[in-house]
């Protein structure tokens, strides 16, 4: 991750944004599943198979590469004519070839799989090799995102001048932006919604300028400060001298005005096309 941005006038993080989605309870957990006997999160819920005998795995690998790889792929994820073995229910339920044996030895001729004259020991070797592949939705070793910069920098500059230039300047607050945030995807996230770039558990490259709030009491007194908390019933803030103040609210009384530095970014969100986003990123990555 790039180091933290020093010029915070542009990129103001608003960590709460991340919280909105992160705390959502969808059925599926985010992220991959590691293994182990300790369940600390839904990510590593399923215990590992015990490691196989290295000699058996070697023998199985040789058999697999000659007989199986063409159809099922070198990584068992399937090929043109054979399905993925990695997610096969039969393979997952198999322990040491006992479920695979009938399929390998008899074939599935109705689906184009020939029979193989393997002994049970040979099937067990092939099974030991196949079971070395990890069945998981997230395989970090395979996640190698190509460059995300696909847009037109000139069009991006035009969009920037039309929509962003009233607050930001390539020669001012954005000078050296792409040097400060060298990861293109993080840069894209950071201009789209400052603070959202960290992704899965990673830090955001920007620091936070806090949201402030002005409360106007019925007496006319105005209290200003950093927003601590706001819901339908209470507003809490911290004034410049560090005092914490809270007010019960009832409808529009007292008057509460929130000053969210990200408001312009939020307002733009529903208006972008994906091409706009990609073009602006292509422009901003030139600000070295």
């Amino acid at each position, binding site marked *: 991750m790039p180091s933290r941005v020093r010029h915070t006038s542009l990129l103001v993080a608003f960590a*709460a*944004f*991340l*919280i*909105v*989605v992160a*705390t*959502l*309870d*969808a*059925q*599926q*957990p*985010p992220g*991959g599943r590691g293994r182990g*006997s300790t*369940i*600390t*999160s*839904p990510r590593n*819920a*399923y*215990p590992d198979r015990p490691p196989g005998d290295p000699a058996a795995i070697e023998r199985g690998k040789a058999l697999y590469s000659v007989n199986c790889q063409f159809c099922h792929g070198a*990584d068992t*994820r399937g*090929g043109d004519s054979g399905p*993925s073995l990695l*997610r096969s*229910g039969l393979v*997952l*339920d198999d322990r040491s070839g006992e479920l695979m044996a009938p399929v390998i030895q008899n074939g599935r001729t109705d689906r184009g799989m020939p029979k193989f004259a393997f002994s049970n020991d040979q099937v067990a070797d092939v099974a030991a090799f196949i079971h070395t592949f990890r*069945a*998981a*939705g997230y*395989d970090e070793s*395979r*996640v*190698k995102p190509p*460059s*995300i910069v*696909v847009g037109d920098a000139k069009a991006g500059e035009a969009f920037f001048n039309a929509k962003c230039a009233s607050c930001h300047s390539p020669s001012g607050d954005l000078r050296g932006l792409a040097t400060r945030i060298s990861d293109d*995807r993080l840069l*894209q*996230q950071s201009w*789209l*919604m400052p603070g*959202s770039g960290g*992704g899965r558990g990673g830090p955001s490259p920007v620091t936070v300028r806090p949201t402030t709030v002005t409360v106007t009491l019925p007496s006319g007194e105005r209290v200003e400060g950093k927003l601590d*908390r*706001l*819901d*339908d*019933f209470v507003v809490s803030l911290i004034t410049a001298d560090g005092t914490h103040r809270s007010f019960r609210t009832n409808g529009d009384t007292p008057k509460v005005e929130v000053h969210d530095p*990200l408001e312009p970014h*939020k307002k733009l*969100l*529903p208006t*972008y096309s994906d091409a706009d*986003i*990609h073009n602006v990123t292509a422009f901003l990555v030139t600000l070295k």
Partner: protein
Amino acid sequence: MKADSPSFFSLAAGPHGTPTRLPRWGPRHSRRELSLMPRGTPPQRGCRAGGPGMAAGALCVFACLAAGLAAAPDGGLDPATLLKPLADQWPSYSGDYTGRRYSALTQINQSNVKSVTLAWTSRLAAGAGGGGGGRGGDGGAQTIVGGEGTGDVVVGGATQIKGAVLMVNNVLYVTAPDNVWALDAHDGHELWHYFWKTKGGTHIGNRGVAMWGNYLFFVTPDDYFVSIDARTGKERWHKEAASFAQQYFLTSAPMTIGNHIIVGTGNDLDSPGYLTSYDPETGEQQWRFYTVPMNPGDPGLETWKNLDAARHGGGHPWIPGVYDPETKLYIFGTGNPTPAYHSKPRGEGMDNLFTCAIVAVNVDTGKMEWYYQTSPHDTHDWDSAQTPVLVDGTFRGSGPRKMVLTASRNGYYFTLDRRTGEHLVTSKFSEAVNWAKPQLNAKGQPVREPAKDHHIAGALVSAANGGATNWPPPAYSPDTGLFYVPTQETYAMYYLSETDPRGAMGLGGKDEISVGSAGSYISAIDYNTGKTVWRHKFRSTRGAAPSGLLTTAGKLLFGGDISGNFVAFDPANGNSIWHAHIGQVSNAPETYMVDGRQQVLVAAGDTLYAFTLYQ
């Protein structure tokens, strides 16, 4: 659709599945006789009570005549109670079969809700140590330990109550993954605690128990279907309900319908979804219904690239459905197709039936009567598993019409005819959702815009993965005619992270990074038009999704906001009337009577809060 042929057997003819009281000779006799039969006797085709010899044949006739009710339980919860409109008890996941979460109780009502006060709290401690319900008072009950695990699997994280709490005969039955508690509804003190030693599995939540007579049923993350005696907490038996090696995990609340206990699966690794119906006495399988085609010739196979794709197509029914006694249809939602994001292996642009659909199966046969797909070829992991809601009423001035309503995670609302599945209304209940083309298709379905799938350079999509709504249940009030839905309008960038379509399994292949929220709401929808009549926007600048909802004949709508407040709203306009800050509400509120006094019960994390009115 398809049943699991070797073990499938029909419950045969007769007025079965309708849990009305039977003549005395029916259920009692056959039950007593049946109990003499050897355990493990395989069921015979055409009769649940099969067994060898003439006597068994005669019994079979009895049982078949008695049909779905062959064994009405002695004591405890009579399945017929489940047919009654929701009032004094809360005997099933949604309280009654309609899923409306509309209680007839009026002791607490709009005119006095401001005087509601706390009756008790009970904080529960999961795990073998137990001791829940006692942290603030007089100690917990002894923990009864079961399970197939070794006991050394540590489940991290705080105890979270994310499901229904049953209330039957002044006893509450509460769950968290691997844990069931019985509490006294008078004061929340613990009567017993059952703990299941797990082998592992995704511990994301548990939606509660089902009850039949004195028996409770629940499911575990390591794929067991467990029955315990409601009076003692002692285990009766447990059955393997899905393959742990295939990474199934079970979270749903079982549903009691007549003499069926229905359980749905969960899985995030390309395994097929299914419902299984079990016998409440023996735990024997009655039928199994797969939500995706499993065999050549199965309906829907033409909507998949090939059979292998269909058999790995997901569609898990991980939230309980609802039941229409008149048509004997169990109506439920199905989850996303898999691989969730890399849709090419499923067949480009193909519908992938019966994922992301509302499906109706006959509760006695497990056969599908109709379906309506709310997200053809989903590419964002937006389940349509949300509990549907059954409503009888006029439709656009004529009727009465029997309908089913659902608000899907994809941001679209639907009204269907529940006898036929005929489409009546589609609307967008989230203004932000942008994943579909502007026009619906001829069937009223939203049409996926492929440009809003995940892409290498990123696509800005609303909603974020959690969807415009999620499992927290909606509610419907016949007093207002409005359907209430917890709603959020979130945005995320969806990046393709795996360019080899063979590489993606389950939920892999993409990175999704949030870019924020335009707000969280309760939406009130008119089922005639699909239009949002009002929506209450929560003022908070941070927070989680709104909780599930409850509405009552006392002209109240209860729910948790996104800031830890438990709130009573006016169901006519969404104005808040009363609230208490208890922490983020983690289930849906419920209500029932205890010795003539109405309680409103809600969970926030590991703690239950019961509110009442002293007058």
